[in-house]
């Protein structure tokens, strides 16, 4: 009889139109490190949100037992009271407060109603020692790097007497050294009796620390593997996550590549906050008609920054370099210039930068091309409605009609609205920044189909993606970026994940 600290049984959670989780069972043994793997959109984060009470009891079906007791959380506070602490991918620290203040936020060390600063800083120092972070507790969090902030988050969980620590993509933003330290720390905590659940895409790390690996796919628990029993390899995990061949995840595609459309030469961009830091450094690339070109790179490589600075100087200061459209030099000073020259940029963060979430599909679709739908400043509302309705039908946007508010759509449908908005500007060049991030598998396939149709129509596509299989499955040619530089250009036939990764991790000196 194994001692399970957590059992989740028959968890089903659905959103309008989508089953995010279907009858998921999860058992976590006391004192182990339990990894959950799955593609984007497989339901990992949803499962953790159910566990931590972000989705309260009653909004899902199924049963949660922690330490043998049935749990009915109505909010995060309830789960934290039991010692279940979740550390999200986006860190939730107050940047302007000190480390110590962050550690005890909502959990302050008090004496007669006032903050006991001596105790606060003393206990904070001890916690920092436990997570191996040699910083003064009074240091302001904003002055720390991402890796150290991650450690502060873990220390904060320890301050709450954590019994089950959930880490959602903890190493996604970390460099190798910080990642290694974090994994060591997790092993250390396991030895102290803390149970951890780790969600990660980095399979080598999963295999390095996990005692058990559970695999989710399309909202269902596929299998649970035990690396200790041997014979669990990265490929084994991948085949569980994917569940089908790479070919079938991407629509077949026969490129018809034409003339050069856009050429970027010697493009350099400085950071708007640190003016002496080059975020993009002498980058050059070309896009041709009907071609899908990938842009690979790790976080911070400068891909989004390159795209946004080209798209009407919407990022960066002191931008230099040359742009050629159809062989002729062009000036793109703002977004309107960019649209006029046939450039379009669909952002990686559609909620913050892509959509007006309180407006309907119709108004979002027309947002970038309103002038084309207007005469002398008067918008033809009927034409606008008809255009949006056409895209809704064509792209299979799941909504009753185009008067549906975009904030209520699922991620995939929101992304289709963003694409419709840019397609209607009739661009020659479409820059798609992480177009399938956070989208479920079915919608991904639809987006791929749309992208390929656009290429067939003769548009040039620049596809920025962090998912190498996506780049390999979609692109005719792939550029890699590292530290602001273009470090490689690989044709479709030659591209492998290993080769791309090697270019993406090239050091500065080796890059040229």
């Amino acid at each position, binding site marked *: 009889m194994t001692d399970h600290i957590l059992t989740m049984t028959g968890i089903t959670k659905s959103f309008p139109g*989508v089953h995010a989780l279907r009858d998921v069972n999860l058992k976590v043994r006391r004192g182990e490190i339990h990894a959950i793997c799955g593609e984007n959109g497989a339901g990992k984060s*949803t499962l953790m949100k159910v566990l931590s009470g972000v989705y309260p009891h009653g909004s899902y079906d199924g049963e949660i037992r922690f330490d043998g007791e049935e749990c009915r959380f109505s909010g995060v506070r309830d789960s934290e009271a039991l010692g279940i602490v979740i550390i999200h991918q986006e860190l939730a620290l107050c940047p302007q407060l000190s480390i110590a203040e962050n550690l005890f936020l909502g959990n302050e060390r008090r004496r007669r109603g006032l903050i006991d600063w001596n105790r606060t800083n003393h206990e904070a120092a001890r916690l920092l020692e436990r997570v191996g972070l040699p910083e003064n507790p009074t240091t302001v969090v904003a002055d720390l790097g991402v890796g150290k902030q991650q450690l502060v988050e873990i220390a904060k969980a320890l301050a709450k007497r954590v019994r089950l620590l959930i880490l959602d993509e903890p190493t996604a933003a970390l460099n190798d050294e910080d990642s290694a330290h974090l994994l060591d720390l997790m092993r250390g905590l396991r030895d102290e009796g803390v149970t951890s659940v780790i969600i990660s895409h980095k399979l080598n790390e999963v295999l390095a620390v996990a005692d058990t690996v559970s695999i989710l796919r399309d909202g269902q628990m596929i299998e649970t593997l035990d690396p200790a029993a041997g014979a669990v390899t990265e490929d084994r995990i991948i085949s569980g996550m994917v569940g089908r061949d790479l070919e079938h995840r991407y629509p077949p595609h026969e490129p018809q590549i034409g003339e050069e459309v856009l050429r970027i030469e010697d493009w350099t961009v400085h950071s708007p906050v640190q003016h002496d830091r080059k975020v993009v450094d002498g980058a050059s690339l070309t896009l041709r008609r009907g071609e899908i070109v990938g842009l690979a790179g790790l976080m911070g490589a400068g891909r989004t920054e390159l795209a946004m600075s080209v798209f009407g100087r919407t990022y960066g200061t002191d931008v230099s370099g040359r742009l050629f459209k159809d062989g002729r030099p062009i000036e793109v000073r703002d977004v309107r210039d960019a649209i006029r020259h046939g450039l379009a940029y669909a952002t990686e963060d559609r909620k913050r930068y892509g959509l*007006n979430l*309180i*407006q309907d599909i119709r108004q979002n679709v027309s*947002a970038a091309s309103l002038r084309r739908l*207007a005469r002398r400043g008067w918008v033809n509302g009927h034409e606008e*409605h008809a255009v949006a309705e056409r895209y809704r039908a064509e792209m299979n946007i799941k909504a009753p009609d185009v008067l549906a508010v975009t904030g209520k759509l699922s*991620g995939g449908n929101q992304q289709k609205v963003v694409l419709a908005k840019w397609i209607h500007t009739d661009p020659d060049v479409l820059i798609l920044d992480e177009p399938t991030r956070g989208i*479920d598998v079915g919608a991904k396939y639809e987006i791929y189909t749309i992208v390929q149709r656009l290429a067939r129509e003769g548009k040039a596509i620049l596809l920025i993606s962090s998912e190498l299989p996506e780049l390999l499955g979609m692109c005719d040619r792939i550029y890699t970026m590292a530290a602001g530089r273009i470090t490689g250009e690989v044709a479709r036939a030659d591209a492998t994940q290993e080769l791309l990764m090697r270019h993406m991790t090239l050091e500065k000196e080796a890059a040229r």
Partner: protein
Amino acid sequence: MSSPIAPAAGRDGGRDRGPAPAAAGPRGGTPRPRLSINLRQSGIYVALALIVALFSVLTEGAMLQPQNISNIIVQNSYILILAIGMILIIISGHIDLSVGSVVGVTGAIAAVLMVNHNVPWPLALLVTLVAGALIGAWQGYWTAYFGIPSFIVTLAGMLLFRALTLTVLGNQGIGPFPDEVRTLSNGFTGSYLGNVGLGPLGGADLFSLLVGVALCAALAVTQWRTRKARLGYSQTVDPMPVFLLRIGAAALLIMVVTVQLARFHNLPWVLVLLAALVLGYSLLTGRTVFGRHVYAVGGNLQAAVLSGVKAKSVVFWLFVNMGVLASIAGIVFAGRLNQAGPTAGNSFELDAIAAAFIGGAAVQGGVGKVVGAITGGLIMAVINNGMSLIGAPSERVMLVKGLVLLAAVAFDIWTKRRSGSPILR
């Protein structure tokens, strides 16, 4: 990684939309009527009707007497004019606390020009409007291009332009105004066509009645044409009985007001001005590219900028527009009192802001309608008027107005939370 679904699509998010799979299929043959969507917007009209009915009973009909209706319009016209500009500013995600002081200073400029310097009134009014535009440009520059929050810029403006008012006036009231200006504020259209008898209601001005009938006809025709055009593009429309009921209700309202006005003194000129402004600004917000950009900037500034909207310029011109409207209100108010005084316009900004929020503007911006702000302003006006008719002391009027404002915004947030806004939950 993140959840594949927007958390906003919470528990009851999909309920009134019917099953999602059906929606995903091809469009059905007959357009489906949609009624429930604008509850928030139509709620304020119902609220206004209820409040009017309540005070009609409490005042034993005095509320709806011809002279009283005329009074409500004339006494609140300047607030309503300000509310039009304010709702635009609020939709764009900003606020203007200075409009009361701008009313004061523009009235003072008009007075000094016309009374002290004998400038002909049309020129003086033009100069005043330009002054209002310049004041708006000043605030628009600091807000839009320099990036100071509009709350601070206009709080400073509130002090600056009050100080300027006192300076221009030399700390005393200046009057009287030329008759033409007073007519704009206080006067009525002439009896161009004589009177007709309306049976038990007595005599009424034929011209005013004809204007009312023409308005109803214009309303019906434009609504009918919009409906036909929508059907032509196979969009959904209200079912015919609802359509007729809505036009009928609007026509009835217009005719009740015009009949009562025709029985009193004909149409107030300021009502004509107000009607033109409401019509013009409704078209601006609903049908023009500029109007759409206002909503886009207020709804999601970054997304608007990344879609090619010149957000700074939009905000700048909104403040210029607010300045011009404030100067119109300044002229109307000064003309009505026949004097520009040092305290003219005090606390008007609060009434204008309250009107906008009662009328359905959202605190975060991006939402609101000109007609809504006018309705909000009328709700305040009717409460003011009704309570003074039944002899309530002014502190109680203030109390009720405060509670109404709070209740209106609370209702807004409550309906949003019900529809599943994740942060407010």
